Each structure stands twice: as structure tokens, then as C-alpha cells.
């Protein structure tokens, strides 16, 4: 079994809330990413997916748990030591306009990681930036421009170029196409795909858009209120979602094809407030299959495809897995 590139062990992140209470944005998430792998994180609001991205890049400290990068425990690494490691773990943010210093030309922004992490001369840096611009299909003339002069799609290319400049091994992408126009999104996704194939960088794609995740990732984690409820190969989860929440989520997706018949699963209530979480399984307040046992403790993971390699395991945190698939079929018949 290969050593994972990055591993999160029981990571918890708490934030102070009103009245002195603490809210867990992330409540005990364990995951790992293999070198060169493309992994997706899906969830709705309150799921903690964006926070996980910040935790993984150590832009915010964990409350408890461990982060292991390439065998090294980086959970409490000093800022100085972390700085050097940052060349290996990079992030692309959702809002390309906000992610760039408005007073720096985009060329300068792209050159920054080279300045920080390499010993290239100014001339060599200019050349490297020019090469990066070519790779992300950015016209060279744009390099002298300021962020407000470029379009969203071009800016996101700049951000991607900046992120890959230091040749990272892990790229965390937080909703990289959500702020962009439809016709521009495909180009960005294609760019990311090409980069992964050419450089072998691992991708963590955080998104609320199921179809994008289905297209771009090999493995998928479904998050609900700060915990993983299902994880496994993307293809399998889409073909046969096991957790009732995953099923509800998938059924709410609207494909851009009027000939597809929707099979909507009943949505019971709304996502509970993080200050008022249900006991036991977090989905128990909305699950049509809930039983008394579900409210006692968060369900342990059961493995659905036991015989495959560990990195391809499909596991679900649900007590009623066996009945859940029946439920999906039954509702299909009713609609």
C-alpha cells in the first residue's frame, strides 16, 4: 500500500459562537489522498468542506487531530517551517477577483511563489512566468495588467498558474468554477485535468456541484455537518449512493437534459443549526429510515466493497445501509 500524500486523522475544528458556545465546523474527519489522485469533497452549507480546505493548507489551525503530509506530522509545525512546505501544498480560491492583490500586476502575483521558493534570478523568473502563462493559455499581454482589468476566467487561470508555479504535490481547489460563467467553466476544468495528467499533482476538489465532481474526481467524500457520511470511488457512489443523505443530495441534482426523468426523494426539513445538532447520527432529524439506535451514537463506518485495495474502499456511516438501497428502489417505483 502506497503511503498517502496527505492524511487527516480525526481532525476537529471548533469556532466560538454566540453565547460562549462552540460550534464544530469539522467534527472528526479522517481522510487521505494518494499522490496524483483526484479527490472530491461535496456537501451543502454547514458541511465543513471549505473549512477542511483551510485546515489542510494550514491557513487555520486545527482544534484537535493530526495532519500528516508525506509522512511528516505538520499539525503544529512552526510558521517558519510551514512556509517552506507551502511550496508543496497550494490552494485555488473560489473568488478569483478577491484572491489577487489588486495593486499588483498579475505577472507579479504569478512570480511571487518563484521569488519565495526558488533561487531564480529576475530574468529567469520572468521567463518562468511567461512559460506559466503559456501553460494556462493566458495571453502574454495580460501579465502587465491589474486584476480588475481581466475577466473572471482569465483571473482564475492566473490563480492556477500562481498555484502551480512552485510545482506543488497537492492542489486544493475550493469551488474553482462557481463564480465563473458557464462557457468559461469548461476551460478551467480542462486546464486542471491537463495539469494533473502532466505533472502528477494530486487534486482536492471542493464543490457543491455534483456533475463537476463526477467529471473530475476519482474518489469522493460526502460531508454532512462536519462529518464524513460516505466515501469511496466516485463512479460507485454516483451509480449506487448508499447513505440516505447522499441519495437525497443526488436526487436533487438537475441535469441539463430535459429528457432525464427526475426521481426526487422527499426532503424532510432543513439542515439543522450547528448550535442544535441532533444526538447520534447527524442526519437522524431528517432521515426517513431513522430508528432509536441512530440517535444514540454516530454510526460506525461499514465497508461495502470489502475486498478491494484500501484506497478504493467504499464506506458508509449508516446503521440502515441494507435497507437504504431498498428505500431508493421503492421510491423509484412510486414516482
Amino acid at each position, binding site marked *: 500500500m502506497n503511503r498517502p500524500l496527505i492524511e487527516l486523522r480525526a481532525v476537529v475544528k471548533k469556532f466560538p459562537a454566540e453565547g460562549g458556545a462552540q460550534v464544530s465546523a469539522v467534527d472528526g474527519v479522517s481522510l487521505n489522498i494518494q499522490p496524483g489522485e483526484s479527490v472530491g469533497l461535496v456537501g*451543502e*452549507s454547514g458541511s465543513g468542506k471549505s473549512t477542511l480546505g483551510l485546515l489542510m493548507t494550514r491557513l487555520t489551525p486545527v482544534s484537535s487531530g493530526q495532519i500528516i503530509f508525506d509522512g511528516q506530522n505538520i499539525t503544529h509545525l512552526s510558521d517558519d517551517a510551514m512556509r517552506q512546505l507551502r511550496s508543496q501544498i497550494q490552494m485555488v480560491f473560489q473568488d478569483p477577483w478577491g484572491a489577487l492583490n489588486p495593486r499588483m500586476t498579475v505577472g507579479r502575483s504569478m512570480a511571487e511563489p518563484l521569488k519565495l521558493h526558488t533561487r531564480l534570478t529576475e530574468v529567469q523568473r520572468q521567463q518562468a512566468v511567461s512559460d506559466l502563462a503559456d501553460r494556462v*493559455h493566458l495571453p502574454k499581454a495580460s501579465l502587465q495588467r491589474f486584476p480588475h482589468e481581466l*475577466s473572471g476566467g482569465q483571473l482564475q487561470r492566473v490563480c492556477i498558474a500562481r498555484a502551480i508555479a512552485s510545482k506543488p504535490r497537492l492542489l486544493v481547489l475550493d469551488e474553482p468554477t462557481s463564480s465563473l*460563467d*458557464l*462557457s*468559461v*467553466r*469548461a*476551460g478551467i*476544468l*480542462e486546464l486542471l*485535468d491537463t495539469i494533473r495528467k502532466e505533472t502528477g499533482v494530486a487534486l482536492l476538489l471542493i464543490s*457543491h*456541484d*455534483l*456533475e*463537476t465532481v*463526477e*467529471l*473530475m474526481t476519482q474518489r469522493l467524500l460526502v460531508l454532512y455537518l462536519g462529518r464524513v457520511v460516505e466515501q469511496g470511488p466516485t463512479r460507485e457512489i454516483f451509480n449506487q449512493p448508499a447513505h440516505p443523505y447522499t441519495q*437525497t*443530495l443526488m*436526487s*436533487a*441534482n*438537475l*441535469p*441539463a*437534459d*430535459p*429528457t*432525464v426523468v*427526475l426521481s*426526487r426523494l422527499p*426532503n424532510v426539513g*432543513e*439542515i439543522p443549526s450547528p448550535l442544535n445538532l441532533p444526538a447520534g447520527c447527524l442526519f437522524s432529524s431528517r432521515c426517513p429510515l431513522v430508528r432509536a439506535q441512530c440517535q444514540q451514537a454516530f454510526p460506525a463506518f461499514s465497508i461495502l466493497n470489502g475486498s478491494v485495495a484500501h484506497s478504493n474502499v467504499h464506506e458508509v456511516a449508516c446503521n440502515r445501509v441494507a435497507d437504504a438501497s431498498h428505500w431508493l428502489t421503492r421510491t423509484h417505483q412510486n414516482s
Partner: protein
Amino acid sequence: MSLLSVEDLHVHFIARGINNQLRTAKALNGVSFTLEPGQVLGLVGETGAGKSLTALALLGLLRPPAKVVAGKIQFEGQELGLLDQPGHRSPRGKSITLIPQSPKTSLDPTARIGDQLIRIQREHGQTDTAKAHARAIEMLGQVQIPDPVQRMKAWPHELSGGMAQRVLIAAGLINSPRLVIADEPTTGLDLTVQAEVLDIFKRLVTANGMSAIIITHDLGIVAHYCDRMAVMFAGTIIEEGPVNQVFGAQSHPYTQSLIASTPKQIALHGFASAVGSPPNLYDLPSGCVYKDRCPKAQAVCDTRLPTLDLESGHRVRCHLPNHPQ
């Protein structure tokens, strides 16, 4: 007679640039479409296509620097004034209503939900407060807000995004309009909440025989909640027709490229070729507005656009449309 008829609407924005020169942005360039009673039309396009602007024109909410240079709008046979004229009697708010986007900022933060719903009715002729109150509770129930009587006293900031959007739907439908315009009704909402909100909206519209225009950039919403769709690009409707036909035929190259950009299509057919830059409304090309990005552009595209009727109800503005499948 159609419920709504928009003919050749041209709207320009006149502004002064940083060097004090007058610049004209041609925001709407000959928008024409009709809507029958009971139909739901999806208005699709990307940023700058002119979809929200069209809605503002329908509601008579255009103000300088917007200038209507041509075109007319007829609603239930009557011509509508296009610029906001105080005192001018328009059907806005009563027969044509708007459900705006961003529910959190569209509700008055200083008034309770119930009071706002009553206020809207009073502004359009309901003098009996008790009746307005009852109707408000009824509408909250129809949009499936739990415990409507209690909720009447709630403040907007106490509501979740999904709830607030449903209150906006209730507000938009409370005066029983003939036409509802929903502007990006699910922006910022979770996937599961979006589905619910749209289901409620569609159900109420259909049950009351209303017509609706849903403005969105999400093709999935159009595919499953609209009867007809109009695709906009650079202030022009470049293709229009029944949803099944437009998705099936994709006659206009822009429609085709939009659909080809969806992840599902990419999974089936691979990544499409690169797309050009967004149109510059200050400097639109002559002839077809799409020709600079179109892989099929030929000399004929420099001339004026035609409107081709493909089948009944399906129109496309292209000299070289794709053949229907």
C-alpha cells in the same frame, strides 16, 4: 392574444468614461418574444446577456442612464410604459410581479414578515387588514413554511436562506398576478433546498394558471421547470422554443456550445474547443453578435441576422443553424 408580447426592444446605456468621452453600451438589441397564459419561460444567458435587464424593462423599472431606443411591450393587449413614470398606472406589482434574487437583502430588515406581506396587499388595493392578514397566512402555508401563524411575527434575519426565498415567493404571488418573474430564484441556496423551492414555485404557478419567466444561468433549472426557453447572448435572443426542441436540436452554435460545456456532456464527448472572450457591449460587431466566437462564421454573418422559424414555436437567429437531430 398572447399574454405578453415584447417586440424589438433596444436598450442602451449611456455613460461617461474615465476620459470624459460618451460611451454607449448596447445592452439589449432587438429582444422579441411572446408568452401565452399558463406558460413558463426560461430566460437563459451568461453575465451581461441582458436577462435581468429584460425583466426590469417588463416591470417598467428602467431608469437613466438606461435609455429605450426602440421597441414596445404589450401586456394583456395594453402597451406598457417602459420607463418608470411616477403616477403612471402600470400593472407592475399587481398583475406582473417580481421575485428578486438574494432573499436576505430583498426583504425589509426592519419589518416583520407578516407586516411586509400585509403591506404589499395594501399597496395594491386591499383595504381590509383582516383579510390581508388571513391571505398572508394562507400564502405562507402554500409555500410550506411550517407554523405560518407564528412565522408572521418573525424578522427576516431569523429565517434561513431557503425560508426567506419562500417568503419572497409568497410575496410575489400574494396578489394573484397573471405573470411572475423570478430572477435567479435559487442563487446561494443549497442543492436540496433549491429543489424544494423550485417545486413549490412551479406547483403554485401551475395551480393558479399563471405565466412565469424564470431568469437563470442554470440549464438544469430550465430543463426541468420550464416549458419554453429563450437563450440570450449580447442582448439578443439567439434561440427560442420549447425546451425539448431547443435542447434536442441546439440549432444555434452558442446554444450548442453552452450545452457542450456542461460536465455531463464533457464526460460523454470530451472537452469542447476553447471559447472566446465575452462580448463587448460598447463595441458590438455589425451583423451577427456571435460571429467573433462562432466556429462556423462566414461572410454572410456580417450582414443582418435573420430570424428563422424552424418548427412551430422554435426560432433561431442564425444564417447557418445546426440541423435538428
